[in-house]
């Protein structure tokens, strides 16, 4: 007898402090409704800083027509703080966190993220990842290559997310950056727990860290293998050629090229 996979929650973040939150809500819902997720789930809209009854009422009016639950969380704690609040609110479900800029790009997107979590060795699945380092801005960040999942769209079991964020200070913007790409990033915390961190492609392939630069996703080619896009992926698509090359180099560096033989593994 096989056990059925845990329930899934899609947690979409709306921040009242973002002047464009109304546009984000409309655009996300349009993309969410355009593509079948391919997996049963519950949509949870995180209303960050909507504690005022009038603001909350407007948010519900903007979301009218969609089937969703809402969770109002305070402004403090950046995006990750809101995700931590959601994880505390959940039980054993798997949760897919999507930030305000996230837009669904293809059918079956949630199934493709979720199915890799059925493998016990996989701890976290992301739609996009990067090798970029912020060390030039702050020496506290690891140098390049600094593999990390981006926090715009990722899926993880709620208990594991609670575990890796249990000791996490989340007050400043710097805390949020450190959680995404610092030495104790969520990626490194999951890896340290002995689990894999993979990027899921539209083609259904799970890309382990070594193969992220050739996953057809974030800042690679035409980004055709993306499941979920965001402001950064859209920005890349609109960029002139030289800027595109610069960004791709900043993200993947020498790993973009296969001009050298692969390292022996």
């Amino acid at each position, binding site marked *: 007898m096989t056990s059925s996979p845990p329930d899934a929650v899609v947690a979409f973040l709306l921040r009242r402090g973002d*002047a*464009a939150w109304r546009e984000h809500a409309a655009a996300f819902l349009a993309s969410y409704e355009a593509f079948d997720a391919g997996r049963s789930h519950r949509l949870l809209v995180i209303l960050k800083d909507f504690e005022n009854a009038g603001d909350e009422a407007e948010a519900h009016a903007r979301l009218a027509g969609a089937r969703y639950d809402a969770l109002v969380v305070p402004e403090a704690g950046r995006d990750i703080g809101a995700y931590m609040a959601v994880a505390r609110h959940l039980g054993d479900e798997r949760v897919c966190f999507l930030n305000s800029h996230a837009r669904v790009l293809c*059918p079956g997107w949630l199934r493709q993220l979720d199915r890799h979590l059925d493998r016990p060795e996989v701890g976290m699945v992301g739609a996009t990842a990067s090798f970029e380092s912020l060390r030039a801005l702050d020496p506290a960040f690891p140098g390049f290559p600094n593999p990390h999942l981006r926090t715009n769209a990722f899926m993880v079991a709620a208990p594991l997310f609670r575990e890796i964020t249990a000791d996490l200070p989340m007050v400043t913007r710097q805390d949020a950056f450190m959680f995404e790409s610092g030495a104790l990033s969520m990626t490194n915390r999951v890896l340290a727990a002995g689990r894999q961190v993979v990027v899921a*492609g*539209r*083609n*259904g*392939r*799970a*890309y*382990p860290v070594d*193969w992220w*630069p*050739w996953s*057809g996703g974030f*800042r*690679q*080619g*035409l980004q*055709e*293998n993306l499941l979920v896009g965001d402001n950064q992926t859209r920005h890349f*698509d*609109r*960029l*002139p*050629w*030289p800027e*595109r*090359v*610069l960004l*791709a180099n900043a*993200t*993947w560096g020498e*790993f*973009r*090229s*296969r*001009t*050298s*033989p*692969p390292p022996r*593994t």
Partner: protein
Amino acid sequence: MLEALVDRLRTALRSLYLLAFPGVLSTPQLSFTIDMPAGRRAFRPVRGRFVIRGWVVTFEDRQAPAVRVRVGRAVYGARRMSRPDVRDAFGLDLPESCGFDLALHLGRGLHLVQIQVQTGAGGWRPLSTGWVLSLGLKPKPSPRVDYGSWTRLEAAWLDAERPELARHAAELEDGPQFLVTIGGDGDRAPTLASLDRQIYRRFSIAPETPAAPAMAGRYTLFLQAGDVLADDALYALADQVAMRGPLDVIYGDEDLVDAAGERRPGAFKPGWSPLYLTGAPWLGRAVAYAADLGDSAADALAALKARSEVRTAQVRRVLLHRPSGDLEALRREIAGAPAPTAVSSPAVRLVLIDGAAGTKGLPAVAVDRAMLGGWASPPSWLETIGDDEVLVFIEREAAAPAPEDLHRLAAALTLPGVGVAGPALAWKDELWCGLTGGCGDPEPIRLGRDALAPAVVHEVLGVGLQGLATRKRDFVAAGGFTPSIGGLLQGLDYCLRSADRDQVTVVEPAARLALTRTPRPPAPEAVSWHQQTWPEACAQDPFYREDALATHPATHAPAFLVRIP
């Protein structure tokens, strides 16, 4: 008292300034900010390019007027940028796209740069003026390696990635089923051996396996005995289906392999090119056809040609190695069979630019380059020309064209969906057949005499003004050519704008024009303007790839270019 004096002084200075430089100061109706270069700072290069950025709105009618940048005598339209912060700051219903942005790579020298805004009357007035000293430094070109070195790298990388591909292949439980047929009288052993090495295992070989009924998820490959599939060929085809859903045809590149196993360049295929397909079976054999298209390659190809909409996917990698003795067959497939010379074609009007040579017996109009675009309404030289007449633009670098070549060119415009046609330009030992995006640095597609190249009408990204044919109606609708970016980019820009109107650009290789000298390359600032205006076209040229073999480039900049001997 003092404040009133200062105010009066300020008003007097403003009046004097306006007298000296009319229209320079912002009126109450027009508000703008130039963020870069900010304040009175000089233009400074950012990664070799001079960045101009800001926003401009008119409060009265809530419009965002166009902005352009003049560099010397040339002008470049700035891109519109989304600036929601401006709308939020003023709390008014202002257009969000009131931002402007342009980054120009200037050639070596001292340049007078002026930012201008369009006035209501259609004129332009300056917002800011400055001098720029540029060293004109350019980034180094990508290194190139020879084909043999590349194939060895490719093999090494495939070995490294094989376990990952095998795992994904095993997970594709609902993946496509391939039926592989092997025709011809050659040695089947290498073909069967390559099938045995396939990473993706959901395939059967005809005729040993009874032909399966045509149904969704089934695809057929029609190989010839002696063909060798790359180990990941079927995986790569299945991967496309997994990514994109059901398809009609999936195809990849082919090269040649000799008895010693040494590989040579072969056919690096373009994006989906239905016009090219009507004259040449360029899809070759590294192709999987949906099973319902037919039981033979010829049937499947015919069925594809008959469809108005085809779901396609292209694998930009070499999937099949043909025996080297197959070179001539490959050449015939790519070249195709040229159609007989057109006996009738639309009326042609030569447009001779800046003193280009005309053709005796053909009507022509001589124009200055400045009269080719940038006008608010069509200029007088177009008035006497019928809407359906074909304008063939000729630049001074081209010799006088032969009438039959011009008629072939005009005949290409009668093909469905074709908006622009160009000839093959003969220069020394080369033929220049259209333009390629060149990873943001557009250039002619230069073909040697022995190149594997189409001899029939085929799609290209664009053609230059050395011989560009288009109908007058389309030319007027497009507003002519963008001024001051040079003939190569003017042609390409026009073709890309035609593509936006769902019109295709083709090259007719049977129409030849001789070049008497090399066309001048576009100015660096014009190239950088082009890169910003057409970022997608720079990211990928669908119809031409010298760099087809860059394995998995993170962008479409080839990881390295392969020199094809």
